[in-house]
């Protein structure tokens, strides 16, 4: 490990230990595992979960549902943004829909969607719904704010439309798109798990959480929550790492 990375790791480990100590102190002060379980109890509960196939199936299916919703939200958001920037009628029609999605609380959508959609697909739909307006707005703003001077340069030098799209337009929009796509992933993940908690589909992290809460297994609630947070972190790091390949240029 490089000295710089070692320093980073030590710093991170020190912060983690500090919060674990704080958690342990809080648990000891309250003195009831039902209210605040100790880190040890949560860890043991997690260990119990990790040896069951059901847990891993729940992890896999939850991740797949949310990723499916996220990716379809990104694709639809980009397509919608391009059409909105190109056709004012399209923008006029869909602008109120985007405002509505942003304004209505996610819980309302979950309850409403539960009427129309099977519980195992609800997380897909809710993740999609959270991601769509974020990506749409970012890309549309990026297209509208493209610096016309560079497009004029491309025109004068007879750069083909396709080359202009990939070499001029997209690189200008990419940094804001990636920032938005990264934060949208966090929203997709949180709202997707929330949808699973409410609709309790088979083999889902949300159901595990809800069941643990129902049976007053607080250490398990903590353990599953830690898994949800860890998965969110891993997915976010994966997106950031992929994004770095595209944006590692000087502006």
């Amino acid at each position: 490990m490089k000295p710089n990375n070692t320093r980073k790791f030590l710093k991170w480990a020190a912060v983690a230990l500090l919060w674990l100590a704080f958690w342990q102190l809080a648990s000891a002060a309250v003195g009831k595992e039902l209210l605040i379980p100790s880190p040890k109890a949560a860890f043991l509960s997690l260990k119990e979960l990790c040896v069951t196939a059901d847990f891993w199936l729940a992890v896999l299916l939850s991740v797949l549902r949310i990723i499916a919703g996220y990716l379809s939200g990104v694709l639809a958001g980009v397509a919608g943004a391009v059409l909105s920037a190109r056709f004012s009628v399209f923008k006029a029609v869909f602008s109120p829909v985007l405002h509505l999605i942003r304004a209505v609380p996610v819980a309302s959508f979950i309850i409403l969607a539960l009427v129309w959609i099977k519980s195992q697909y609800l997380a897909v739909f809710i993740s999609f719904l959270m991601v769509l307006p974020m990506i749409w707005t970012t890309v549309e703003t990026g297209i509208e704010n493209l610096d016309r001077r560079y497009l004029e340069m491309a025109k004068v030098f007879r750069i083909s439309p396709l080359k202009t799209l990939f070499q001029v337009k997209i690189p200008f929009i990419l940094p804001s798109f990636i920032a938005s796509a990264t934060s949208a992933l966090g929203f997709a993940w949180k709202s997707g798990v929330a949808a699973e908690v409410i609709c309790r589909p088979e083999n889902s992290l949300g159901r595990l959480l809800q069941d643990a809460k129902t049976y007053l297994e607080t250490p398990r609630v903590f353990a599953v929550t830690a898994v949800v947070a860890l998965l969110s972190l891993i997915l976010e790091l994966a997106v950031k790492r992929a994004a770095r390949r595209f944006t590692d240029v000087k502006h």
Partner: protein
Amino acid sequence: MLSIDNISFSYGENPVLENFSLSVGDGERICLFGKSGCGKTTLLRIILGLEKAQQGSVTAGRDIKYSAVFQEDRLLPFKTVLQNITLIGADEQTALSHLAAMGIRDCADKYPSELSGGMRRRAAIARALTAEYDCLVLDEPFSGLDSENIRKAAAHISECLSGRTLILVTHAKEEAQLLGCKIIPVEKNAYDTEKPL
């Protein structure tokens, strides 16, 4: 070759060009000369097809390929100098030879943000010279360059033109003389907030 007939252009209520006519022959070198805001850059934009004259016409005997140095450098910030030049379809060797002639061969792999204003200007000139063109359009190409670099750049431009047409906009008559341009005064309807090329 290029005929500009009675063109008029205004930004909103403010007329910039009114019934302006000009004829530029093949291989001719002209300099549009006049005070700030008289419509020189607007005229270049109309010639390049970036603006449409509200009246009059710009006609050419054949399809003319233009190359340009804009009033700003317009180098893509996320591409190196060499990538900016090869983006327009030029091969690397030609691009590098023009960069060398402009004295910035070492900057080929640098990003525009890593260069001084004068270096960026020279990179923009190198890009314009690398392109395939019949008519070279230069809008204040030497702004930010010292006299030594102006002389070198002008000599290289002159050498590269080899019989092709040049339309220059500048405030400095010496620059027009360096490039051997015929001076065309543009005086009518001065307008304060001229749109940059």
